[in-house]
């Protein structure tokens, strides 16, 4: 279709069942559309997005020789691609299409104002038609996609995503900020409802991830900077100074010696002792350390903040291995990938700030993660559940569910449900009854959410094994100064009275929240967060693994609380979605680019710093300076276009002429089109 023709626009009003037709007069809007300048045909249909609906568009283009299409229906964020395709199949360039959002931004929000909604719909159609008469042919731009991916975070979600990508033949960088991969699942003892040993089922994945030819595992590494866009992300990684080198790093650095083999001779002689975060601070580690014997990679790390540079470790390591370098510094490295999956996991909230439960004041009040380490055979007590105050075996253990979750009181408390705490508390109750004959767990709950496969059956089993359930929110936990027992003050809502339950130990099922570096990471990658603070998915139902930033996907708890099965499922989904553009080798970008209208450009250069992506620059042309746009870098935001004092920058598909036409179309006419 040639440009600069007389506008011949077709307008299609959708009923969307009763979603639109139930709140405004589709008939009136259609009749009104016919009166608008440039409109040749106006039609309406029950469901424009359906096949017959789309066929109406295609047929009308041919029958009436149309050069612009307007559909008044739902949101372009939902169906713009659908109707653009229909427009294209009708023979028009697909960018000669404009939508009027008369559902999400009209009929759904003005359900009790028939006249107001109808008048607004008429104005919305008039605005859309005004733009449609000025649309032009545009070609989407194809960019190549780097045949590589990155996964940020190597917990079970990150590892699964990386394994799937790697098995699909895609070179994948697996980035982990801790010295080892494994994440939270490594810290767990058993997993519900099967009671599998967590580390046992995880280590095969860890080993696979560590030695997969397509996985480039980078531990003790963080994302420093992100540039680029889908298909072409340029990511700067900060490989933190570990203080040791593995065999391949020795060769790469050209240093004599076989490198770190995880023997631990260094840790034996290190004089500095610090708490081990893997053991939730309940066991020591040295300044040169590994978190636990099954770390991947099996390589020691120096905590330079605590290291006193005595050199004893290097001595113990010896000249044969020569793995230690106390003067190591961080290294920066740039890699190029096509897609990224974020799997940054979670932390517990600082539950000591919910002062009434006495965490950190009362010795025998612990969190769920601390319980996992205490009950784990490879943990600080060899799997013997003991009380922190005196090492005695607790016989009455209280479990406070929803500790800081489903809580609207502000501060550190979270309004959402942390999803897996009911199940792990039931698991803990089971473990106590199993390991300590005669021990009784008291579960203080609001609801028991046992939603998954075999979860309800597990709950039934725990009830039958003898756990006590008291339904009520725990108001306060007091400590007996002599015995260090806890008095849990709560109410039993089923009995309708307050109760005090004396326990030897209390486990708080603390709420979870995103990790502290989740915020800088999301800002680097340019994705949004939901109102509850977790990363925002593209669509909660139809696109839970993607984000609105093309090429960035989500896996695991970073997108919202979920258990291991759901994390692994989402990781597989994210890997599949991420592999699509990579395997296709190219991706289409919307051509909303900036263009310099050179005869209007004064070459002042003031637009250049306006662009966040550095897409604009000044060049010499015909003896003067003019601006030029590097389309590969231009994202079409229009910041330069809104700025140029000479009006010399034209934003494709959002030209000033089109926007002003929309403004005029609304304001230079009476509301609703009539006097």
């Amino acid at each position, binding site marked *: 279709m040639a440009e600069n023709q007389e506008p011949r626009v077709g307008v299609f009003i959708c009923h969307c069942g009763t979603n639109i037709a139930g709140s405004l007069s589709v008939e009136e809007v259609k009749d009104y559309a016919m009166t608008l300048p440039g409109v040749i045909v106006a039609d309406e249909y029950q469901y424009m997005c359906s096949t017959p609906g789309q066929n109406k568009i295609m047929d009308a283009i041919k029958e009436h020789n149309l050069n612009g299409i307007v559909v008044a229906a739902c*949101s372009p964020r939902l169906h713009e691609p659908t109707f653009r395709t229909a427009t294209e199949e009708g023979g028009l360039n697909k960018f000669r299409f404009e939508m009027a959002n008369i*559902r999400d931004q009209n009929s*759904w*929000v003005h359900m009790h*104002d028939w006249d*107001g909604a109808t008048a607004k719909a008429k104005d919305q159609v008039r605005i859309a038609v005004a733009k449609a008469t000025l649309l032009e042919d545009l070609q989407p731009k194809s960019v190549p996609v780097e045949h590589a991916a990155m996964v940020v975070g190597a917990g079970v979600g990150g590892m699964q995503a990386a394994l799937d990508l790697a098995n699909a033949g895609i070179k994948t960088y697996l980035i982990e900020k801790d010295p080892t991969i494994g994440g939270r699942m490594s810290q767990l003892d058993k997993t519900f409802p099967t009671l599998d040993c967590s580390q046992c089922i995880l280590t095969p994945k860890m080993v696979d991830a560590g030695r997969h030819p397509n996985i480039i595992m980078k531990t003790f590494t963080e994302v420093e900077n992100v540039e680029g866009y889908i298909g072409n992300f340029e990511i700067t990684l900060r490989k933190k100074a570990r203080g040791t080198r593995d065999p391949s790093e020795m060769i790469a650095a050209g240093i004599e010696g076989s490198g770190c083999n995880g023997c631990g001779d260094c840790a034996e002689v290190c004089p500095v002792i610090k708490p081990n975060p893997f053991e939730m601070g309940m066991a020591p580690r040295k300044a040169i350390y590994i978190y636990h014997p099954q770390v991947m990679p099996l390589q020691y790390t120096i905590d330079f903040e605590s290291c006193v540079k005595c050199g004893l470790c290097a001595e113990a390591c010896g000249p044969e291995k020569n793995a230690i370098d106390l003067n190591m510094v961080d290294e920066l490295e740039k890699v190029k990938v096509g897609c990224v999956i974020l799997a940054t996991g979670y932390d517990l909230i600082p539950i000591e700030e919910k002062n009434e439960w006495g965490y950190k004041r009362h010795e025998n009040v612990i969190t769920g993660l601390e319980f996992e380490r205490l009950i784990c055979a490879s943990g600080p007590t060899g799997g013997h559940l003991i009380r922190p105050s005196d090492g005695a075996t607790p016989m009455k253990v209280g479990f406070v569910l929803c500790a800081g979750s489903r809580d609207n009181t502000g501060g550190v408390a979270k309004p959402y449900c942390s999803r897996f705490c009911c199940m792990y508390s039931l698991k803990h109750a089971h473990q106590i009854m199993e390991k300590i004959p005669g021990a009784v767990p008291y579960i203080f709950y609001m609801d028991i959410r046992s939603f998954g496969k075999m979860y309800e059956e597990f709950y039934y089993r725990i009830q039958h094994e003898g756990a006590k359930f008291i339904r009520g929110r725990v108001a306060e936990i007091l400590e007996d100064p002599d015995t260090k027992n806890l008095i849990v003050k709560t109410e039993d809502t089923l009995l309708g009275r307050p109760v005090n339950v004396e326990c030897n130990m209390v486990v708080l099922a603390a709420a979870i929240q995103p990790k502290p570096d989740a915020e800088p990471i999301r800002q680097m990658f340019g994705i949004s967060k939901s*109102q509850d603070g977790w990363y925002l998915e593209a669509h909660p139902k139809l696109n839970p693994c993607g984000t609105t930033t093309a090429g960035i996907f989500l896996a695991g708890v970073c997108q919202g609380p979920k258990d291991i099965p759901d994390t692994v499922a989402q990781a597989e989904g994210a890997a599949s979605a991420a592999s699509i553009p990579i395997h296709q080798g190219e991706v289409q970008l919307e051509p909303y680019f900036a263009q310099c209208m050179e005869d209007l450009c004064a070459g002042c250069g003031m637009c250049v710093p306006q662009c966040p992506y550095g897409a604009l620059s000044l060049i010499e042309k015909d003896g003067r300076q003019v601006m030029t746009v590097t389309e590969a870098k231009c994202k079409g935001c229009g910041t330069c*276009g809104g700025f140029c004092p000479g009006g010399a920058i034209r934003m494709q598909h959002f030209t000033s002429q089109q926007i002003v036409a929309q403004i005029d179309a609304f304001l230079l006419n009476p509301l609703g089109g009539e006097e």
Partner: protein
Amino acid sequence: MSDGEWKPKIIAIICNWCSYAGADLAGGARIQYPPDVRAIRVMCTGRVDPLFILKAFQDGADGVLVSGCHFGDCHYLEGNYKCAKRMFLLKNVLKNIGLNDNRLRMTFVSASEGAKWGMVMEDVVKTVTELGPSPLAGKKN
């Protein structure tokens, strides 16, 4: 629509990634608000040329709303900051030409803030209604 009672003409220019999505979310949640605002979609509030706003007032708009992402969350990194700077400047211009600068408003509504969008709509309509018709309404150039 010809019941004689004056209704304000309010135009909104909203960004695709945050405010437009937030407005859609309000729709999904069936949050109800007055119908006096018509929205124009742009990719980023950075696109908003001050001349658009002045043209809108010249055309007789009683109120203009620009809504984008929260600072730090702009899909294109900085467009909302640049727009905010222009809005501050524009408010001074409006004061100088005798228009009440409360007729121009910039808000920040994220894609997950449907309820907030509803409140913004209520508030903008209320503010503009209380200010009454723009002194430029009904004048042709």
